[in-house]
């Protein structure tokens, strides 16, 4: 059999598996609701300009302070007269982008360390898992609170790295540092059991190097877990970002949902009864986190071999 044909049939197999999975996923009401909500916010995040003006209009006043919702400003205005609808829609982009990048960092750290620990075993495994346990016990949110200003101090608040403002970057990195451990643990335990399987043994006997074994034989088989874990990580990343921004570690020029709520808090919007400043970003945050949680649970049920054993 030629290599081309082999890889062709492998692709057909993968496609068939994917289709079967899509059918099973479509049968999950919770997962589908989550997906629909997420697609909606995904579109908002990808193209906010389709719905409202460019970012500058969200950071500039266009109404009077605390204007109530009206035909012109559907969701009213905040203490500086900025349009809430506008800010919330743009907030989707910032919140989701930070959530996504933090998830990527978390997964890269977690997956790489989990694979290495699980595959190499012995001292390396022991050491890495001790560190992971330490991070699991640490009150990570308080650590994030301390790390963020320290890092901002180090890089400087106005610096830009690859076009991303340093404050946002710091939030991304801090979320990554404080949440990789859970992913690493999950991936490690799966790697451990995969390592003992026949096909890995066969590859080892034939003389395939460890890096290649991990990439070609183990990684594809932990992909399920990574996907399910990614969705849940995303939910907690969005939550952490929102909270950090709410506390005032966000970037005032980049209105994320947490940032909008931070403004509402500082201006005392709640005490003034200006519910329209609070409701749009708050509902958005809850919907997105809820959607991710629903999807994550559905995926976990379908993909995680351990949780599939149920009555």
């Amino acid at each position, binding site marked *: 059999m030629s290599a081309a044909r082999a890889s062709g049939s492998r692709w057909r197999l993968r496609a068939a598996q994917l289709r079967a999975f899509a059918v099973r996923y479509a049968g999950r009401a919770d997962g589908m609701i989550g997906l629909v909500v997420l697609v909606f916010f995904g579109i908002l995040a990808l193209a906010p300009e389709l719905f409202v003006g460019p970012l500058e209009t969200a950071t500039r006043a266009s109404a009077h302070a605390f204007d109530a919702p009206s035909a012109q400003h559907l969701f009213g205005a905040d203490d500086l007269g900025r349009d809430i609808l506008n800010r919330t829609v743009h907030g989707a982009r910032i919140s989701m982008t930070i959530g996504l990048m933090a998830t990527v960092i978390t997964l890269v750290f977690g997956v790489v360390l989990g694979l290495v620990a699980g595959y190499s075993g012995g001292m390396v495994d022991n050491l890495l898992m001790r560190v992971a346990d*330490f991070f699991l*016990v*640490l*009150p990570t*949110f*308080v*650590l994030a*609170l*301390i*790390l963020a*200003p*320290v890092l901002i*101090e*180090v890089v400087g608040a106005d610096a830009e790295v690859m076009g991303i403002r340093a404050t946002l970057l710091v939030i991304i990195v801090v979320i990554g540092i404080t949440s990789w451990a859970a992913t690493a643990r999950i991936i490690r335990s799966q790697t451990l059991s995969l390592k003992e399987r026949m096909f890995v043994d066969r590859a080892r006997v034939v003389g395939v190097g460890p890096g290649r074994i991990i990439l070609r034989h183990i990684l594809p088989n932990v992909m399920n877990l990574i996907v399910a874990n990614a969705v849940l990580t995303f*939910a907690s990343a969005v*939550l952490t970002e*929102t*909270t950090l921004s*709410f*506390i*005032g*570690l966000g970037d005032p020029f980049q209105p994320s949902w947490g940032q909008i*709520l931070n403004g*509402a*808090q500082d201006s*005392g*919007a*709640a*005490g*003034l*009864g*200006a*519910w329209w400043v*609070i*409701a749009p970003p*708050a509902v958005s*945050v*809850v919907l997105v*986190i*809820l959607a991710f*949680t*629903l999807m994550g649970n559905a995926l976990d049920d379908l993909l995680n071999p351990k949780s599939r054993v149920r*009555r």
Partner: protein
Amino acid sequence: MSARYLGQRLLQAIVTIAAIVLLNFLLFRLMPGSPERILLRNPNLSQQVVEATRARWGLDKPLIPDQLVSYIGSTLEGDLGYSFKFRGQPVTSVIADRVGPTLLLVGLGELISAIVGIAIGAYAGWRRGGLVDRVGSGVSLVLYSMPYFVIGMPLIVIFAAGLGWFPTSGMTSVGGGDRPFPDNIIDLARHLALPLATVSLGLIGQYSILMRSSIIETRSEDYITTARAKGLRDGRVLRAHAFPNAMLPMVTLIAINLGYVIGGAITAEIVFSWPGLGTLTVTALQARDYPVLQGIFLLVAVSVVVANLAADIIYGMLDPRVRR
């Protein structure tokens, strides 16, 4: 519980605390630039105090071992340095002033949410698919997705700004704490109501979701079939057989959460300007008051480790299988 089990857990806790102290030390000293830039950049300190602190911390000596040794020494003595923000007060006393309100708020919140959450979760899991399960699980999931401030701000809009039933912020009215009993308690209760509701609602979701799945898992155990075979009433099977076993993982969660009480509901405190550790954290953060931040981190981290230890010990006492 064997001495070995206990000793193992104790050793683990001590190692973790040592690692936390080390992390706390390195975090503020390995940064680029002089450590004084961050540690002593305090306009409220006289040159004299700065010199004295430098000497005591040995900032002019090598990082390891001299600085580390003196850092550990002063930490053990309870000397966490001086606050920038609070006019050079010792960090220990700044933090101590704020522990009480936080314990009151989050401790009560834990209690209420644990009782309510466990009751809802147990019933929902036992009658899986029933009305309580559908409604309760839905509400729990939504609450679980809500950070404290997202719960607290609407509560203010409705019950403080709208209906005017409760004050919007603080722990006492002006002079309210000095009024004669019981007026001072009533004043405190009125201020406590909304923050407490926020913290409780925020935690109920977590407890009820875990309790539900724990009960569902327990329900399929053989000893539940045995209890049913005995012809016991459904309620008796739940109370005497399913519940005690399903509570085992809950005990761990509650104990661990108690550790987070200290660091607890930072954003809930902010929303209601509750004068606890949460607001202190943010005040310190805004002032870049690193000694206070470090102190809070140390306190929270140590209490979490201690709570974990307590969870292991309580679990060992409740589950006879670990008790040996």
